């Protein structure tokens, strides 16, 4: 039986999460990955974790909390928890105004700077890459801009996320039409291979795009891990800060500052801002987008 049906069906009573259990789980999640779950999202945590309780046959969320803390199952379960608490709403070519900034000059200025130094190396970090739509979009943009010259440059994209499950999905590079809803048709034709039909139609990203991207499990709350990441010319971290409280946002932005090379650029979500978070970056205003620069 491959379906989850028989796993989820149970005659046990429905469990609810009390405030103490919520507090314990919230603190635990914050400590492990910096994601802060506000009170009004308690129902979401309860709904999403209920299947984990059913799966293990646990009676209360308190038991689940102990299970997470235990050596026996906690380490593997932590990944499942990360999958549950992160939502993966994304698509190719999301927030095109920001991508236009990259296409219309920003990338070229970074390349020019590198050429002045006699280098053809550029490193881009896609932080919180979810199922891979953002890093693949960036690589497609590089192909579109550079064409045949792409092979003359050593441009690497490192894509990271907290959840191993979404990274596995990203590495497969297989998408539904929904993920491509904001992607120009010509781009789909050039960089994707359709497979299957009807409801089962999927699009596979072409290997020439895939080969420039490496996927890694990265916890933005792990400063030691972040310090070991190769230093970047450009960081994309869009729609990730919304999961964090102010203190965590400050820590993450501070780590991005340390990772960026002088003159590097930081892209955050179009509805996110560094106001009251950090003054270290210089905001550069473009039509419909702001990009943050680390002064050289």
């Amino acid at each position, binding site marked *: *039986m491959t*379906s*989850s*049906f*028989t*796993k*989820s*069906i*149970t*005659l*046990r009573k429905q469990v609810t999460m009390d405030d103490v259990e919520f507090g314990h789980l919230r603190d635990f999640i914050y400590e492990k990955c910096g994601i802060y779950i506000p009170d009004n999202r308690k129902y979401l945590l309860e709904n999403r974790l209920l299947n984990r309780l059913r799966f*293990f*046959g*646990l009676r209360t969320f308190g*038991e689940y909390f*102990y*299970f997470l*803390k*235990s*050596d*026996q199952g906690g380490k593997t379960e932590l990944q499942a928890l990360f999958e549950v608490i992160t939502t993966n709403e994304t698509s190719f070519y999301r927030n095109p105004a920001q991508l236009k900034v990259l296409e219309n000059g920003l990338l070229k200025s970074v390349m020019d700077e590198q050429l002045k130094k006699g280098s053809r190396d550029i490193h881009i970090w896609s932080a919180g890459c979810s199922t891979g739509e953002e890093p693949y979009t960036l690589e497609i943009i590089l192909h579109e801009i550079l064409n045949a010259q792409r092979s003359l440059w050593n441009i690497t994209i490192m894509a990271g996320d907290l959840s191993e499950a979404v990274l596995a999905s990203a590495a497969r590079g297989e998408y539904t039409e929904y993920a491509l809803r904001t992607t120009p048709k010509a781009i789909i034709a050039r960089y994707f291979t359709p497979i299957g039909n009807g409801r089962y139609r999927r699009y596979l990203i072409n290997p020439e795009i895939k080969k420039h991207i490496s996927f890694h499990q990265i916890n933005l709350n792990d400063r030691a891990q972040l310090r070991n990441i190769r230093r970047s010319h450009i960081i994309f971290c869009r729609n990730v800060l919304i999961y964090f409280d102010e203190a965590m946002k*400050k820590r993450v932005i*501070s780590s991005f*500052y*340390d990772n960026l090379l002088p003159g590097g650029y930081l892209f955050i979500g179009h509805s996110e801002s560094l106001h009251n978070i*950090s*003054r*270290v970056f210089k905001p550069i205003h473009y039509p419909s987008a702001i990009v943050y620069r*680390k*002064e050289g």
Partner: protein
Amino acid sequence: MGIPEIFAYLESNEPELQREGAFMAGEAMCREAIPQLARLLVSPNLGVQDAADMSLRKLGGKEVVAAVIPLLRSEDAPARNLSMDILRQVGHHNVQPLIALLKDEDPDIRIFACDILGATRKLMAVHPLCDSLLYDPEVNVRYQAAVSLGEIGKSDATEALNEALKDDDWVKFAVIEALMKIRDDSSIVALLGALDKSSELVASIIIDALGEIGHIKAVPVLINYFTGAVPVLRNKILKAVVNIMGTKTLTFLSDKDRVTFASYLLSAVDDEDTAVQDAAIVGLSCIGGEAASDKILMLAASINQEQEPERFQKAINGLVALGLTPALQNSAGSDDEHLSNVALTVLIRMGTPDALQVCTKVFWHKDRDGQRVIARGVGALAGKEAKPFFLRILREATDGSILKSALSFLGIRMQFVDVVEDIVPFLNHPFDDVKEVALDACIAIGGKSVEALFNKMLHDPDPFKRTMAVYAFGKMDVRSHLADLEDALNDEVADIRKIAMEAMAGGCGDNSDLLSRVVPRMINDESRAVRRSLVEFLGSSQCSDAVAYLIKALSDADDWVQIRAIESLGTTGRCDVIPALRPLLTSPNQLIRMKVVQALGRIGGKEAFQELLSILDTQDMELLEAAEQALDLIQADDDEVLG
């Protein structure tokens, strides 16, 4: 990193090392580094400034206040602003030097001091700030003192603020804002007195303040002022009066005034100020009528629900109060998605048969999200008249969420016996969640035909069907299907055995024959999920043999089987199980240790008490707390018995 290394980094010429040193000083709570960190706030490198800033905030304390205060006099504006911001956060650790700055010769320093003292929220700053408000020669200092008194929000400042209403308009703005925050009733008279003597701009702020403070004493004066007021002030007065009076606003007006008030409320819906719009909604919901419904519908459709959920709800509440108007009915069928969604939300909130009928009429013209809203809402509220609507959904809809609403209504809520044949095909639906609701729907309807269906499914080669049948018998009547459930314990699929075991745990724990047949066979089942359910079954059993099996389960390879066995043994109240529990007090699994402690507390008695006393020297604080609670429980029980 040790303190010497931190200092070496802080004194380096390399910005990256200075930044690292600054972070380390904060992380190590190195208070000796505070003066050095304060100096780094004026570093030309923003990254260094940032690290020093973060660490100083983290360190806090009176030393940080003392080290940062001198920077308020810096000519470097960014450094000055940064030090202001740090002092706003940590100034409460030592307010005295900040209060002293209120007498500084430099008016800028006095302004900064007022600002920072406001952020400290300290009561001891109120009287010095009141003195600055009333007696400082510099208008900007008085202004900032008023702002800060509002921020502190203590009524001790009210008398000085009332007095300051005679000051310049510039100061008056801040004073009124402060009074609004403090909300002391004693300010009403002072504010009303200032109304006639003020410019239109100041009057507008006073009106807002009176509305916020919300004292009924202000209403007659505001109504009098209303007649001669310019449109902008009129809308402000409408807002203030509605805020003070709420939905009773119009009951005290004469008929003539009510008509006038209503027309002003309709035009106030178009005001740029969203607070005025909200007040107009409340007012109009009392008046009623087509025009009011139409206006509020348009307004609600323009509100972004996710960004302004409270405003959206206010508009919905207003529309619900207005009832089923033609405007609402027309909007439900509108092609304007926003307008239609608003109307559907209102109709479902109303929940009356007439309102729900409007929803079902427009259902097939809506997109997927609209259909989901209707199906969920109607399914939860409608009566039997909605049966044809939901049967059509079963025939024609494909969306899982919509289908679940229909299955839930027809089977679980209404339990229509004659729809079983319509529901049964959904037991094979490709979506698991649809299958589950269809299954629960069949079970809820019950009856002989449903039972016959599950009897057939029980022997089906398809394990899904067998699973459903076992689940259904567990839900319907365990005792009359005991033989079937016992057979299911031999199923090759572990999940089926587990559900059969769960079913037995739910209804036949007192059957000692069953226990003796089932347990020896299942206690070594290869599936831990099955063994867990078995232990729950044992826990529900009243049979004396169950305890022996539970003790055996304490050695199970699966921690959760052990845990369930410990819990069950705890509820027996039998002291003779303590020797079996004792070894688990040293289990590597903390939860197992905790469960043993809790079980000992429940068992009670001298032996359990002694056992708990023996672990009070544990270093595990959570276990210690659990042991103390268990001891308290035993003592409380003893007290109860004794006296």
